[in-house]
C-alpha cells in the first residue's frame, strides 16, 4: 500500500535495521505519515537511543526534588509552597544554519517547557560556544545568536541574567546554543503531560500550523556536511509576541482546574506531543487533522504531523471545560481548537479528510524505540605536567589573558539582553552566578551554567566532574545552597567509539559529582551528531544549576566593597597548568593533565563559604576558575573599582604547596578554590574558623588603592579594564578580523 522504498527510509534517518523493527512492530508496511512519525519519534533527538542506558546512572532524587527527568522540565521544592521549575535545551543545528531564528526559537522552546509545567519563567541563561574568533563565520554567527536571544527574551519580558561563552576552532562548523529557563510555580500546582483517562478532549492552543521546521528533529540527529545551508527550511521562525500571549493565556487557564495534561509542541510538534502524552497517560489519542488551525492551504497530513511551527501547545481538558478554556484563548486572540479525544486504547490514530492516515500503537513510538548500547573505546586521559616558561613577566601575562577571547568581559553580549525586567534581578550578569529574587519574598534563586570543554576533551570523566563542581562553586560563591541541575549533553557522533567514550565517561563524572555534592539532575537534553565533515566538537556537557538563598540580604558578590579588606584564599594551589587557558593563550599549547577535582574538598569548601555568607561574615566572594588566581583577583578589583596589593606568604606556611613557581601559582587552574574579601578586623575570625575545620585558608593580600600590585608588578585598574572590556567591542566592530594570537 505504501510504496516505502529503502531510499525513502534512509532519507528519514532510519537504518535498515530500524525499519525492519517497524515492520515487525506493525506487522505491515507503514504509510508515509507513519514513517514520518517513526522517523521523528525514533530520532536521537526525541528517543535518546544512544544515551538512555547511560543517563540512568545519573542521580535524580533528593527529598526536595518534586519532579525529575522525563517531564517537560525538572521541579524542586524551595520552601513556603514555592517550586522552581527549570531545564536547559540545545538549539545547536538550527542556530548554525540561521543564527537569529535558531537562537530565538531555542529561547522560545525552553520557555514553553517551563510554563507548560505551570511556572512563570523568571530568568533565562545561555551557554554559547562559537568557533575560533578568526573563523570567517564566527562574528556573523555570534551577532545573530545574541540578537536572536535578545529579540525573543526581551519581548517576553523575562530577564536574561547569565550564561557563558567560549571560542574554540572545534565549533567552527557547529556552534552550540544551549538555553536554560528557570520558572516559579506553586508546588501544589505543577502541570504534567500524562493524558490520563478516555473521552477527554484534546485541544490545540496557540499559533497556526505551517510548513516550517518539518523534520527539524531529524536534522538535529545527523551530522552536517557542506550542504548545511541547504537545510534552512528545517529552521523554525519564532514569534515572541504570540509566545507572550501563549504564556499569559496558559497561566490563566492553569488558574482554573480545567487541565488534565499539557505539553508544548516542540521538536516533532504534534507527533511527539500527542505520542508522549498518550504514552505517559496510558491512553490512546484520536486526532482529526482537519480541525488543526492551519496557516497554509492544502497541507498534507505528513506536513502537519511533522511541522515544528512554534508557539503551540497541546492540552487534554476535563470534559465540558472546552468553552471555559476557549474564552481565555479568545481573550488573548490565540487559536483554540478541539482536535481530538483520548481513547481507552493504546493507539495513536490520525485522521485527515475522512481517512485514517496513521494508526500506531503508542508503545511502538516510545518504549519500543531503539535503545543502543553503542560500543565505546576508552581513551587514556591526557597526562603530565606541561613545560612552560617560568620566567614570564606576570603583568604581561595577566594583561594578555584578561583580554583574551575566553576571559574578557562579556558586557557586549549581556547589555543586549534585558536583564533587569521583572524587578527581581539582584545580581546581574558578570558575577559567579546570577541571583533572582523570588518575587515579593526574601528568598532568591541563584543560577549558573558551566562546563570546561577543553577539560572534557582531555579527560571526559574529570571534565564531567569539574562541570558540576564549578556550577556548585559558582552558586556557593554567592551564598546559595545548590539544589539541583539540568544537563545539556553536547557531543559528536555517538556511532564513533571514541565519541561514545566521551559520552559515557562524562556522564560518569557528572553522576559522581552530583552524588557527592548532593545536586541531582532533574532535567536535561542530549544533542549528538555535533560534527561537520567528520570533525567533532569538544565534548560539552553543559551543567545548569540552581541554588537557594534563604535571605537575600545575606548574599555575596565578587566586587570588592571596602578599602582595607583582607583578601583570603581558600583551597590548595599546586599550580596546575595542564589544559589551562595560560598554556593555550600564552604558550600556544593544549596539553597536560587536567586539574583533578577533589569532590570532598569541593563540598567542604562550598559549605564553609556558604556558612560565612549566611552568618553575615562575608559579602565578597569569587570562585577561582579559568585563568587562575590572578585573573580572579583582577575580576574582583575591576567589579568593585578598588585595587589590591597581593603579598602571599612564601614557603611552607603559605598557600603555594611545595615548590610552586610564580607563573604556576598565579595562573594554575587548581579546583575547589575561592577568594574572600573580609573586613580586616574579621579576617582573624574567618581564618580561625577555617583552621578549626582543617580547611586550607590564607591571607594573600589587602584591598586598597587603584592598582593591582604584586611584588614589582603594578598595573592600574584603568589598564586592566581597557584590555578586559576592550576585546569584545573591538572584535564585533566593523573592522578586520583580529590576528591569530
Amino acid at each position, binding site marked *: 500500500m505504501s510504496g516505502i522504498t529503502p531510499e525513502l527510509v534512509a532519507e528519514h534517518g532510519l537504518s535498515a535495521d530500524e525499519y525492519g523493527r517497524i515492520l515487525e512492530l506493525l506487522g505491515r508496511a507503514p504509510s508515509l505519515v507513519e514513517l514520518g512519525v517513526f522517523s521523528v519519534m525514533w530520532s536521537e533527538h526525541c528517543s535518546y537511543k544512544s544515551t538512555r542506558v547511560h543517563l540512568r546512572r545519573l542521580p535524580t532524587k533528593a527529598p526536595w526534588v518534586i519532579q525529575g527527568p522525563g517531564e517537560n522540565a525538572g521541579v524542586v521544592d524551595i520552601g513556603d509552597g514555592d517550586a522552581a521549575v527549570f531545564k536547559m535545551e540545545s538549539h545547536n543545528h538550527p542556530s548554525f544554519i540561521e543564527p537569529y531564528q535558531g537562537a530565538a526559537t531555542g529561547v522560545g522552546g525552553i520557555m514553553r517547557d517551563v510554563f507548560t509545567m505551570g511556572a512563570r519563567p523568571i530568568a533565562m541563561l545561555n551557554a554559547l560556544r562559537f568557533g575560533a574568533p578568526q573563523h570567517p563565520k564566527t562574528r556573523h554567527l555570534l551577532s545573530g545568536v545574541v540578537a536572536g536571544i535578545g529579540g525573543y527574551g*526581551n519581548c*517576553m519580558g523575562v530577564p536574561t541574567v547569565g550564561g557563558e561563552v567560549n571560542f574554540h576552532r572545534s565549533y567552527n562548523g557547529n556552534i552550540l546554543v544551549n538555553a536554560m529557563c528557570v520558572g516559579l510555580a506553586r508546588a501544589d500546582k505543577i502541570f504534567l503531560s500524562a493524558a490520563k483517562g478516555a473521552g477527554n478532549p484534546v485541544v490545540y492552543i496557540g499559533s497556526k500550523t505551517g510548513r516550517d521546521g518539518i523534520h527539524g528533529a531529524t536534522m538535529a540527529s545527523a551530522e552536517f556536511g557542506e550542504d548545511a545551508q541547504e537545510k534552512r527550511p528545517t529552521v523554525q521562525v519564532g514569534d515572541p509576541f504570540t509566545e*507572550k500571549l501563549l504564556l499569559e493565556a496558559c497561566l490563566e487557564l492553569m488558574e482554573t482546574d480545567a487541565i488534565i495534561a499539557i505539553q508544548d509542541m516542540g521538536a516533532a510538534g504534534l507527533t511527539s506531543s500527542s505520542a508522549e502524552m498518550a504514552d505517559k497517560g496510558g491512553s490512546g489519542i484520536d486526532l482529526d487533522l482537519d480541525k488543526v488551525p492551519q496557516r497554509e492551504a492544502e497541507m498534507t497530513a505528513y506536513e502537519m504531523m511533522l511541522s515544528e511551527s512554534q508557539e503551540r501547545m497541546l492540552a487534554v481538558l476535563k470534559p465540558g471545560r472546552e468553552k471555559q478554556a476557549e474564552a481565555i484563548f479568545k481573550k488573548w486572540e490565540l487559536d483554540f481548537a478541539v482536535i481530538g479525544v483520548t481513547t481507552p486504547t493504546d493507539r495513536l490514530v490520525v485522521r485527515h479528510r475522512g481517512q485514517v492516515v496513521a494508526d500506531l500503537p503508542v508503545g511502538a513510538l516510545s518504549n519500543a524505540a531503539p535503545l543502543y548500547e553503542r560500543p565505546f573505546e576508552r581513551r587514556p586521559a591526557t597526562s603530565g605536567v606541561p613545560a612552560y616558561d617560568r620566567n614570564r613577566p606576570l603583568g604581561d601575562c595577566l594583561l594578555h589573558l584578561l583580554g583574551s577571547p575566553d576571559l574578557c568581559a562579556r558586557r557586549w553580549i549581556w547589555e*543586549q539582553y*534585558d536583564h533587569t525586567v521583572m*524587578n527581581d534581578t539582584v545580581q*546581574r550578569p558578570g558575577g559567579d552566578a546570577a541571583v533572582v529574587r523570588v518575587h515579593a519574598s526574601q528568598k532568591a534563586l541563584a543560577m549558573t551554567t558551566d562546563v570546561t570543554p577543553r577539560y572534557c576533551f582531555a579527560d571526559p570523566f574529570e571534565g564531567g566532574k569539574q562541570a558540576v563542581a564549578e556550577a556548585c562553586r559558582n552558586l556557593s560563591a554567592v551564598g546559595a545552597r545548590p539544589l539541583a541541575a539540568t544537563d545539556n549533553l553536547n557531543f559528536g557522533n555517538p556511532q564513533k567509539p571514541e565519541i561514545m567514550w566521551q559520552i559515557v565517561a562524562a556522564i560518569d563524572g557528572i553522576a559522581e559529582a552530583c552524588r557527592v555534592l548532593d545536586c541531582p539532575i532533574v532535567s536535561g537534553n542530549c544533542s549528538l551528531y555535533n560534527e561537520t565533515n567528520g570533525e567533532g566538537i569538544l565534548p560539552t556537557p553543559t551543567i545548569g544549576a540552581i541554588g537557594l538563598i534563604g535571605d*537575600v540580604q545575606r548574599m555575596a558578590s565578587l566586587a570588592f566593597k571596602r578599602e582595607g579588606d583582607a583578601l583570603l584564599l581558600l583551597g590548595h594551589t599546586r599550580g596546575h597548568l595542564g589544559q589551562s587557558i595560560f598554556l593555550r593563550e600564552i604558550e600556544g599549547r593544549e596539553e597536560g593533565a587536567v586539574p583533578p577535582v577533589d569532590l570532598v574538598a569541593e563540598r567542604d569548601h562550598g559549605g564553609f563559604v556558604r556558612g560565612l555568607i549566611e552568618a553575615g561574615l562575608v559579602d565578597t566572594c569569587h570562585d577561582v576558575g579559568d585563568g587562575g588566581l590572578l585573573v580572579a583577583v583582577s575580576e574582583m578589583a575591576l567589579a568593585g573599582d578598588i585595587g589590591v596589593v597581593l603579598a602571599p606568604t612564601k614557603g611552607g606556611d603559605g598557600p603555594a604547596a611545595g615548590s610552586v613557581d610564580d607563573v604556576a601559582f598565579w595562573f594554575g587552574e587548581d579546583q575547589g578554590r575561592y577568594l574572600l574579601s573580609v573586613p580586616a578586623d574579621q579576617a582573624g575570625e574567618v581564618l580561625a574558623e577555617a583552621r578549626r575545620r582543617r580547611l586550607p585558608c590564607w591571607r594573600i593580600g589587602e584591598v586598597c588603592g587603584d592598582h593591582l600590585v604584586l611584588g614589582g608588578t603594578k598595573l592600574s585598574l584603568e589598564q586592566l579594564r581597557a584590555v578586559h572590556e576592550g576585546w569584545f567591542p573591538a572584535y564585533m566592530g566593523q573592522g578586520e578580523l583580529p590576528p591569530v594570537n
Partner: protein
Amino acid sequence: MVPSMRAAVIVFPASNCDRDAASALEGLTGQKPQMVWHQQSELPAGIDLVVLPGGFSYGDYLRTGAMAAHSSVMAAVRAHADRGGAVLGICNGFQVLTETRMLPGVLMRNAALKFVCHMTELVVSESQSAFTRKYSAGQHVSFPVAHGEGNYYADEATLDRLEGEGRVAFRYAPGHNCNGSTRDIAGILSEKRNVLGLMPHPERVCDPLLGGTDGRALFQSLIETLG
C-alpha cells in the same frame, strides 16, 4: 499621611513592565494600582495617574507603539490627558505616546542598531513638573535603560520649542547618551506638562536591592502633586 493618588496601569497584550510599574507604585503608595486591559474603552472612575508601561505592546513588529496608538484604551488615555490628567509613559509607553502624537517627535532605532540594557546616568533638566518636583534641576540620577528603539528625534524647531518651554525633563548625562537621541533627550513633557514620556525605567530603581532608589522621587513627586 496616607497618599490618595489613584493610579491605573495599562496592559497591552505584550506589555512586560506592567507588573514592575504596579509593584513600584504599590510600594510607594501602599495601594495596588488598577490594571486596565487594552480592549477597555474607558478608564476606571477617579484615576489621577495613568501609566503606560514598558514592553512590546502588540509585538511592535511594525513600528514600536504604532499599533497601540490605535487601541481602544488609548482613546480613553488621550481623553484623560485632555482633561488634565497625568500620564506617565515609560519606554514602550513613551513610544506609544509619540505614536499617538500626545508627545512630539519620534523614537527611532538606537544609533548602534542594538538593544541596550544597562544603568545610565541622567540629568534632571526640569524640576518644575508633577513628575520631577522632588528632584532638583541639574541633579544627576541613575536609571536603567532597556530598549532597542529609544533614539529620540524631532525637527530643530520642535527641539528649540521643547527646550524653550522647559519641557525636556531628563537628559542623558554627558557620555551616557546610549541611543543617539538628539540633544541627549531622555524624557519630555507635553505642552500642558501633564504627560511625561521617558525611555529609562524609574520603576526599576525603587528598591535598593535592585541597584538604586533614584526612581522613587519621580513617583513621590506624583504622589505629592496628585495625592
